[in-house]
């Protein structure tokens, strides 16, 4: 059963046809070639598929694409403005907050949602905000640091 849905994807109005049995993640990756969000566990435990829906982080592997009708989706690809990277992306690069990179898009989207809601979080807030994102390489310290650098910058502004 196909459904025509309209939604906003990375600030662009989209009308698209999807099958009922496609997840948001598979539609983002296969139909739009936005391959930043990854499938890790496929059951809501790893957060590699995290994107923002109406500003809130969600697991795109657990949402049917038909359910996205009328909503606003932001993926890692929508975070930069042209060639200008988001502060979080720059900070992750500068602080070496990734190794294999598989968790990075999800990690950054969770951090983005936190900073949108609270531009000056504590380290505890940051750890809590990324608790639904698993990283198997870094031990999290550099990830937390990269996010805190942006938070501290916000604090000084």
């Amino acid at each position, binding site marked *: 059963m196909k*459904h025509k849905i309209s939604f906003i994807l990375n600030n662009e109005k989209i009308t698209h046809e999807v099958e*009922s049995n496609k997840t948001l993640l598979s539609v983002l990756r296969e139909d739009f070639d936005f391959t930043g969000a990854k499938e890790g566990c496929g059951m809501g435990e790893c957060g590699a598929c995290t994107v923002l829906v109406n500003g809130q982080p969600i*697991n795109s592997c*657990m*949402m*049917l694409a*038909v359910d996205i009708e009328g909503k606003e989706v932001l993926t890692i690809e929508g975070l930069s403005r042209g060639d200008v990277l988001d502060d979080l992306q720059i900070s992750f690069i500068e602080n070496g907050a990734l190794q294999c990179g598989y968790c990075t898009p999800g990690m950054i989207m*969770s951090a983005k949602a936190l900073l949108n809601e609270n531009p000056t979080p504590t380290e505890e807030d940051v750890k809590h905000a990324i608790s*639904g994102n698993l990283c198997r390489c870094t031990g999290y310290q550099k990830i937390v640091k990269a996010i805190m650098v942006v938070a501290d910058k916000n604090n000084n502004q």
Partner: protein
Amino acid sequence: MKNFDYYKPDTLKEASELLLKLDKSYIINGGTDVVVRLRNELMEPDALINIKEIKSLHEIIEEEESITVGACVTMNEMAHHKAVIHDFGILVDAVHYAGSGQVRNLATMAGNICNASPLADSATPLLVYDAKVLVYSPNGDREIPITEFFKGVRKIALEKGEIVTGVRINKYKSVKGVFRKFSRRKEVDLSTVCSSVASVDGEIKIAFGSVAPIPLRAYKTEEFLKDKELTDEVIKEASKIARTEVSPIDDIRASKEYRLDMVELSVVRGLEHIRDN
């Protein structure tokens, strides 16, 4: 994932009619359980009926004597709602540990109880609050006490065509108690054992998850505690009675013996908390 038909009715009546009309049709709400079950082909519906277009199900209604949480209110919306935080701290604590933030932005409490997992995070607080499950029924709306809602693993007291519209909890004069979750990780994990132990308007109420086919109340233990002062001896005896009221199994997360010990520990710590605070 096999394909299926998908409907988005605007009213409960339409949703219920679809459920009655279509074979192998199910409700989808937050989707965090359903989509995983679809993916693993544990569920192969002919049709899914999304109830999230039904506006009235998204409300939290505060009245003088109770609060009603609509079926489509997400766990995060509920856990950040002032009145819910004020009156139902044990529930907020429990929901806070359900899945991850990403999951809680989609998942709902109604979905959590309808999924009827033995370890549903929101079940034990609802049991000690004696919550009522509100049900739309083609034969007229009805209420099911949460203590009669769970019928088995993934089995609930709904008839065909019925839909949970929300959960209503009474505002009690005084509630003192704790939710406790034993799990391997602090965040994003399923309970090995979970419990709510509370004094609700002076009466001790105890509920456990993950130690029986359904989340359940420990009625014998509660009966034993009636009108008793919470001395160390009474607490110890209560915790031994609680062990006899559950029937845990060995599984991937823990052994039966460990679970029994955690049941005992939950009662001891819970009652001590009530006594000392």
